[in-house]
């Protein structure tokens, strides 16, 4: 049987077809490995063993009967616990949803089930996807499998750690300001934040609706392309989902002759003071590698980059404060005893929310309140437009933009948890992409020294094929 460490979606699929192993064997081996490792890492919040075994058996029967299978048939996948799977817990990492069971399938889980994937369980996250370290969950801390004293990044901490430690072949996370790409960079896996509107958000517990996107965390860029292709597409249940005609050929079988024609822009605003020298050197090396593939590299400007963090930390809490209004312990979730209805709301929200959601709800309600709306919220919406225009201008000159993912490598557990502003700064290179609604890919630097470092490729809207294509050829340089 194949070793879990060697399995990618592609290799699993090939092995399954050749009958080198069964889906059930791999599923059981994965659960055994989770049992052995996860008490140390803390990637999973709940496991879905009984149903996963049935899904794996169904995959094996399909293979035995020579029935049509998909590239995801039998693949053991983990889902961030803010993505609903009917009948499974969905806590969003918050005590306020400790007792909640999802009453319907998110569109992405329905697509995964239809494709025959095996859903292993639900993974830990910073509460309501608010955080950059995996320390903000209401239940437990997730640790970085590459160094247990360090954070895995966040908020898709558990999904990323599960893939990095082979406790899943692939996983889904969500990315509002970097929550897929930043942990991917810290743990040395691939993370794709798709274009806003390309993957349905139906059944994703919302943080900031104009920024959230679900996307894959995988071991290779090729796997990210496969998984993205299975979950993307127009969905009537998400009014912001887009009907886009993606070229499957470009997405799944990129050709070097086409990729070579792409121009890469390097924005000087991303190579600033505060960017760790080691990280900068690794990213420079990647840029040279991309150059060696024959792509043209060009310096560009994205002048409003420095304002992205302020802009984001106004818009995101504003939307979050509205989205989190529904959590009051009335219809579902955990309820605390209280005298009157008003006391019940206060008590439930006081006891149910951790420090970060409280901070963001208060901040969001502040920037939206009468008297401050124009100075903060309205101003931020205009600055968001300026940031988007920067990218529009840049994409007149280049096809893809390459940057670091994070200013530093994974930091120590506890290092930044006392200072929210310091923590927010760790997303400084990922946030502009969400504000502009663009696709971006975080890829681990190959042959690096020390802890993982990621580099980011940002593409035009709905041009995931460009960034995934370059990423796949970059990986081939080191195969």
């Amino acid at each position: 049987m194949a070793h879990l460490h060697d399995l990618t979606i592609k290799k699993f699929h090939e092995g399954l077809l050749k009958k080198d192993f069964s889906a059930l064997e791999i599923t059981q081996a994965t659960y055994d490995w989770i049992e052995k490792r996860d008490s140390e890492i803390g990637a999973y919040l709940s496991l879905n063993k009984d149903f996963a075994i049935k899904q794996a058996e169904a995959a094996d029967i399909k293979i035995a009967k020579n029935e049509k299978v998909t590239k995801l048939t039998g693949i053991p996948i983990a889902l961030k616990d803010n993505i609903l799977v009917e009948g499974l817990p969905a806590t969003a990492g918050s005590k306020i949803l400790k007792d909640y069971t999802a009453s319907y399938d998110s569109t992405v889980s329905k697509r995964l089930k239809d494709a025959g994937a095996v859903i292993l369980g639900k993974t830990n996250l910073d509460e309501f996807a608010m955080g950059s370290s995996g320390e903000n969950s209401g239940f437990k801390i997730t640790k970085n499998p590459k160094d247990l004293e360090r954070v895995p990044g966040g908020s898709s901490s558990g999904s990323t750690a599960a893939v990095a430690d082979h406790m899943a072949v692939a996983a889904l996370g969500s990315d509002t300001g970097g929550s897929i790409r930043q942990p991917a960079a810290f743990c040395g896996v691939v993370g794709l934040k798709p274009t806003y509107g390309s993957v349905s958000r139906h059944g994703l517990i919302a943080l900031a609706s104009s920024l959230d996107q679900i996307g894959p965390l995988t071991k290779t860029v090729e796997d990210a392309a496969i998984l993205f292709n299975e979950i993307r597409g127009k969905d009537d249940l998400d009014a912001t989902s887009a009907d886009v005609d993606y070229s499957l050929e470009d997405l799944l079988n990129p050709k070097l002759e086409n990729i070579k024609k792409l121009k890469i822009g390097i924005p000087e605003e991303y190579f600033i003071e505060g960017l760790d020298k080691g990280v900068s050197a690794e990213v420079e090396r990647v840029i040279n590698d991309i150059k060696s593939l024959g792509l043209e590299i060009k310096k560009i400007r994205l002048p409003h980059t420095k304002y992205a963090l302020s802009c984001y930390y106004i818009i995101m809490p504003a939307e979050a404060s509205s989205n989190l209004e529904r959590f009051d312990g009335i219809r579902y979730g955990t309820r605390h005893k209280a005298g009157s209805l008003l006391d019940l709301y206060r008590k439930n929200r006081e006891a149910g929310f951790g420090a970060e959601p409280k901070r963001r709800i208060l901040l969001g309600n502040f920037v939206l309140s009468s008297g401050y709306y124009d100075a903060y919220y309205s101003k931020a919406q205009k600055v968001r437009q300026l940031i988007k225009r920067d990218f529009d201008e840049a994409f007149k000159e280049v096809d893809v933009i390459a940057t670091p993912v994070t200013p530093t490598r994974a930091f120590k557990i506890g290092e930044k948890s006392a200072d929210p502003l310091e923590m927010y700064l760790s997303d400084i290179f990922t946030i502009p992409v969400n504000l502009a609604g663009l696709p971006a890919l975080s890829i681990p630097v190959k042959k690096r020294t020390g802890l993982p470092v990621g580099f980011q490729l940002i593409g035009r809207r709905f041009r995931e094929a460009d960034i995934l294509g370059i990423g796949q050829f970059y990986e081939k340089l080191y195969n």
Partner: protein
Amino acid sequence: MADINKKDLEHLAELSRIELKESEEAKLLKDLEEILNYFKELQELDTENVEPMTGGTDNKNVVREDMPGKTDDTGKAYPARGPGQFPENKGGYLKVPPVF
């Protein structure tokens, strides 16, 4: 741009339906002050003639027909749905404390 004081914070907490402990207030006030102070950099930018970007999509007025969805037609109780999720349940009805 204005700074935030203890009274503002308590008012916000009231609007947000969050009970704050005395011990939380000082830390929150400090954090919010620092964050709001950081936002001041936005005032450097002239946004006089800039259209606000109001969302993540250019789609406008997306509508669809109402469609009947999947229902539990087995007649069996469905524990994950509706009354099964209620934190307090009296004869299938949602129980809440008195409003007044």
